């Protein structure tokens, strides 16, 4: 019987073409949009993790309360013992120290007088250790517009927008004015080794990145860091692992009554990223639901039209001794076959388009110039294993649901009435 139905579907284009096209388009869009949204959210989360939150962040309780002000007077102390301890206790993550600071960037002229000045957001990261992955984590090499990464102490990179605004070129000197962790004035002059553009307005507006050791010197932060960030060695954020580290660390080392005691936070707990994570995780389900709903309505209607056209066939089949329940069942089998064919076609096209968007992406940076969120400049899709099967949900559910709804009218019709519609 399946063979009989299959022949009917293949030979009767009007029975199969439209539903297969609808299913293919729906599945294609489900796969593509799921992959693309997943890619965007993953990129956004990764970007936040790499630049700001880590997968797990350790800061002092007091720093946590005023984090937006970058209060280095409340920074973590004794990081020379804390970091090795973390590496030993939680080897599933890589632990790095970072210093964040705010200040004034001063550009001197040839006489050493101020030529230009502007507020800057600074970051001290480990450029100098040979095993450090910080430069690649922040994608600095690929973001370089001019010059090189800092190769020795006293060098800095600044954002390209900043450099253009102040007419600064690699090799020029810039001075950072800020305050030490003890509250006294700090200033240090750096040679610009290169300029970078991350593609995120928030980062590109005005930032200077220096070596961690330079930041310590400038801000009097020996054995101290604004934060210690943990990155899971799998490279991907994982709630379960991050929570395990956080809970274990906080139980052992965090004291709620001591505002200077360290506290661990997962990525989910920071910058409302929990909601984005939930959206990223649920994106496939959301897309599936939308397309199941939309396609079911379309397929219901096309099923009704096909059903009307096929009353003659149903009448003949009733006369030949097929019961209505069996006719209804064969309509569902047809839906499953059409759903499978459409899903395979839609998935192949969807995966190809997703792969293209994964490699090339779409550049929305010009549209997000004034956005203060940390957003990736190029929105890329991401092919995940679930994209290979996710299309089967809308593809099969929508066709079966559409045909089931359409077929219900036939099922409810009296045999004699259906038969009379044969026009015999």
């Amino acid at each position, binding site marked *: 019987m399946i063979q009989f139905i299959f022949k*009917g579907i293949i030979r009767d284009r009007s029975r199969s073409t439209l539903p297969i096209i609808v299913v293919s388009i729906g599945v294609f869009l489900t796969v593509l949009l799921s992959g693309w949204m997943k890619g965007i959210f993953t990129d956004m989360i990764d970007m936040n993790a790499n630049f700001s939150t880590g997968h797990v962040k350790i800061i002092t309780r007091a720093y946590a309360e005023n984090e937006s002000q970058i209060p280095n007077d409340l920074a973590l102390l004794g990081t020379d013992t804390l970091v090795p301890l973390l590496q030993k206790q939680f080897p599933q993550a890589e632990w790095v120290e970072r210093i964040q600071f705010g200040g004034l960037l001063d550009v001197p002229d040839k006489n050493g007088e101020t030529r230009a000045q502007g507020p800057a957001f600074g970051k001290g990261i480990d450029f100098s250790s040979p095993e450090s992955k910080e430069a690649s984590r922040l994608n600095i090499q690929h973001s370089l517009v001019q010059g090189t990464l800092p190769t020795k102490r006293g060098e800095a990179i600044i954002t390209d927008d900043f450099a253009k605004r102040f007419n600064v070129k690699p090799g020029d000197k810039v001075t950072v004015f800020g305050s030490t962790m003890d509250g006294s004035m700090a200033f240090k002059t750096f040679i610009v080794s290169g300029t970078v553009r991350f593609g995120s307005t928030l980062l590109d507006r005005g930032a200077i990145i220096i070596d961690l050791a330079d930041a310590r010197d400038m801000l009097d932060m020996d054995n101290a860091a604004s934060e210690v960030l943990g990155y899971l060695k799998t490279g991907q954020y994982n709630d379960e692992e991050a929570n395990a580290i956080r809970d274990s660390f906080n139980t052992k080392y965090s004291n709620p009554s001591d505002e200077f005691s360290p506290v661990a936070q997962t990525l989910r707990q920071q910058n409302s990223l929990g909601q984005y994570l939930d959206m990223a995780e649920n994106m496939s389900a959301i897309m599936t639901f939308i397309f199941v709903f939309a396609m079911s309505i379309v397929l219901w209607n096309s099923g009704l039209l096909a059903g009307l056209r096929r009353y003659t066939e149903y009448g003949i089949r009733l006369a*030949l001794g097929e019961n209505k329940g069996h006719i209804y069942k064969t309509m569902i089998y047809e839906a499953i076959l059409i759903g499978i064919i459409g899903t395979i076609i839609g998935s192949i096209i969807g995966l190809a388009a997703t792969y293209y968007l994964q490699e090339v992406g779409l550049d929305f940076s010009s549209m997000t110039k004034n956005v203060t969120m940390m957003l990736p400049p190029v929105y890329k899709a991401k092919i995940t294993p679930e994209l290979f099967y996710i299309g089967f949900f809308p593809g099969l559910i929508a066709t079966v649901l559409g045909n089931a709804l359409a077929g219900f009218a036939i099922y409810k019709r009296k*045999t004699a009435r259906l038969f009379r519609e*044969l026009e*015999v």
Partner: protein
Amino acid sequence: MNNNIIEIKQLTKQFPVGSSFFTALRDIILTFDKGEFTGLVGPSGSGKTTLLNIIGSLDTPSKGEAIVLGKSISKLTHKEAAQLRNRHIGFIFQTFNLLPVYTVFENIEFALLLQHLSAGQRKKAVMEALEWVGLTDKAKSKPAQLSGGESQRVAIARAMVKRPELVIADEPTANLDSENSHHILKTMKQLNRDLKVSFLFATHDEKVMQYLDRKIILKDGKVVEDNVLEAINL
């Protein structure tokens, strides 16, 4: 021994029309014996097709009883009625009603698919049915490639392939020319004689009447005449 295959007892059929009812058949009493070649004759609206539908278990009586092959039609469930049609009753329609996307072979085979016969058994039965109607060379053709006469012969083969006890034919010659009409009537008559299959026609075609053994005239839902005839002998 009782040789009846159909027994109609005080059968009335009404259809709702607005708030009242239209009576299509009124107190019909009839019996049909095995192997009959009978025609229900009458003008449009006389109730021929309604009676055939009830005998074919596609509809049920409003009052009275129709016992077909020992089964009371009004007592059958949907499934039982479908099974009765599938195993014991063949249908031939005025407009042939072949499934256009399937070949001649597949059209005839369909009834056997429902009986869950093996592919070998189906093939044997279909080819035998095509032999009866002289269309073995058209097995792979599509209905659109057939003439009207050929299409109706395929429809006969489809009705006969399951070796039913009863074949119901509603105006089977209405869409055929004279030559084709005689051809298919001869075929049916031959099958009636050779396989002892009962044929029940609804017709007002004079050509059909020449072949009938019995003619029942219906008018306004009532039997007005029931005559045994001297039919053409093949």
